[in-house]
């Protein structure tokens, strides 16, 4: 679709005009950490950043949500309030690609109404990664710092204060005003050069061994999972992890994130647990991502954002663990 060249102030003005009709979510600092969170003005938005702590899945599949209220005499469904549409600003390609992965599950054989409604009413403006972090490995999983999959509009820098906008969908068209200039060859090549530089900066690669599937029963998993403390950081911060629990809090039935590493995940009421040992839990996470999801949905459920490695309390490195398996 369309490509535009905009100055930074033109871009800012365009986004500013959207605050009236949209809830804007963007990367913003809070207590010294960066999060995707609702912002009131463009002043709160950070432009140069690598991956924030959370990822944009939170706005489609939140940490906890009320599904319905259930009483003896009534059942009342809660659907997300999507009257005010939402724009997610400056999403990175890894996070947006993960949404495409989640779509396959949540908008699959059984449609998840709240996820679908949020997907339909959210417009995503992506921002290319100029300086990927040293824990990034998106390229080896089919992504890239300038990839645009899952975005409605993508923004890539041309030079200081000048940006190339790709309008990729109708939703994107709705929010970007007719303005700016058409890109010239020189501008395109400047962006291309930045893209190459960013791609070269990504040194880490995940290489799934050809006999990965056969390694399932290997003692290797016992060894590499020893340090794991069975917390939920890797799964909760992962843009592609999607396991959840359904629980009752009072009369409200809640869907909340859950993690395969927890002791309660597969434990049944009578106490049996087929995945009691830590290495089985850890192995499940790895195989679910790199084997089962691929078999069921055609793609690996990892986008290479590196959050799990960065935030792991004991610094278990998924790349190393998969590559050496």
């Amino acid at each position: 679709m369309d490509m535009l060249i905009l100055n930074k102030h033109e871009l800012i003005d365009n986004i500013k005009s959207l605050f009236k009709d949209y809830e804007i979510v963007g990367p913003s600092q809070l207590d010294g950490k960066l999060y995707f969170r609702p912002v009131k003005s463009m002043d709160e938005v950070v432009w140069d950043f690598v991956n924030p702590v959370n990822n944009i899945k939170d706005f489609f599949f939140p940490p906890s949500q009320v599904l319905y209220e259930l009483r003896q005499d009534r059942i009342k469904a809660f659907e997300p309030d999507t009257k005010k549409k939402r724009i997610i600003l400056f999403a990175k390609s890894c996070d947006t690609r993960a949404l495409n992965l989640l779509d396959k599950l949540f908008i699959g054989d059984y449609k998840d109404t709240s996820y679908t409604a949020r997907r339909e009413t959210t417009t995503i403006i992506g921002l290319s990664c100029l300086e990927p972090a040293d824990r990034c490995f998106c390229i080896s999983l089919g992504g890239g710092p300038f990839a645009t999959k899952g975005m409605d509009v993508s923004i890539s820098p041309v030079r200081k204060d000048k940006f190339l906008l790709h309008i990729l969908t109708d939703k994107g068209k709705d929010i970007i005003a007719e303005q700016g200039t058409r890109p010239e060859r020189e501008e395109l090549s400047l962006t291309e050069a930045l893209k190459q530089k960013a791609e070269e900066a990504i040194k880490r690669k995940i290489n799934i061994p050809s006999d990965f599937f056969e390694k399932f029963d290997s003692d290797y998993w016992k060894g590499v999972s020893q340090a794991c403390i069975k917390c939920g950081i890797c799964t909760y911060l992962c843009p592609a992890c999607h396991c959840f629990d359904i629980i009752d809090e009072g009369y409200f039935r809640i869907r909340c994130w859950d993690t395969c590493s927890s002791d309660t995940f597969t434990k049944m009421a009578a106490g049996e647990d087929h995945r009691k040992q830590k290495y089985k839990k850890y192995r499940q996470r790895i195989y679910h991502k790199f084997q089962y999801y691929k078999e069921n949905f055609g793609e690996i459920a990892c986008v290479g954002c590196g959050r799990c490695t960065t935030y792991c309390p004991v610094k278990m490195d998924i790349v190393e663990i998969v590559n050496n398996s």
Partner: protein
Amino acid sequence: MIIKKIKTTAKDLLTDGSVSLIIGYGINGPGDVTPVFIKDPDDVEKLVWNDQCYYNLIRYLSDRDFIEQNNGSIGIIIKGCDQKSLKVLLSESQVNRDKIKVIGVTCKGLMDSDGNVLAKCEACDVVYPDKDFCDVIIGEEVKKKEKEKDFSDIDEIDSMDLPDRKKFWDNFFERCLRCYACRNICPLCYCKECIMDQHNPQWVLPSASVVGNRLFHIVRAYHLTGRCVDCGECERVCPIGMPLRKINRKIIKVVKERFDFESGKDQEQKSPLTRYRENDSEDFII
């Protein structure tokens, strides 16, 4: 050099069979320090020692499943601060002292990724682990500095009025993901089944929401009262940066003031909440 001595000590202990496993610090793929578990004497080359050795490895000694799988003697590398948690575990009969070899290492303080000394290290009073407690000591002896505990940051929060204090904490409780990293990294959180995981009855709301999160952190603090040694691991691992040490240090302060007790100093001493003394302060009982 310290690392050389760590390696030879580890190698000797593994070779002569006095331990079957060494828990120490190593390096992962991207170059971060990570816990390593060494069984083969030739693997001691994997051990490292630097100012990024944050982990309180004692955590693995209170992990029942871990001990079950490694039932031989274990050699463990500790810093002075880690030693305190081990002493608490000993006082609570959670660790069989005869089955562990403690390799104490002098620590000059840990640095965060920006090169700043960790706050807990600034207040450190155990740079040099106890000679009579460790089986092996590595590093030069540093004279013990009895530092007066500085609780000014706690006083600051205490001086806030209630609504402000609530606002301060709710700011974090709203974001807590209940990933339980703080609980799971803690060497003193070793309950066989955590109350947070019990659902019949459901004591605490399990989803990540402010009501349940408040209660979770209050319960966590209560369960660590008279026990927490301020190793700071919970705060280090928290993905949202909740200042958990402020909660822990508040209870440390209260226990110090009311019972004149500091946990982790002496493994023979029981925590005030697990013993009775006639002169215990009881002004909180109405």
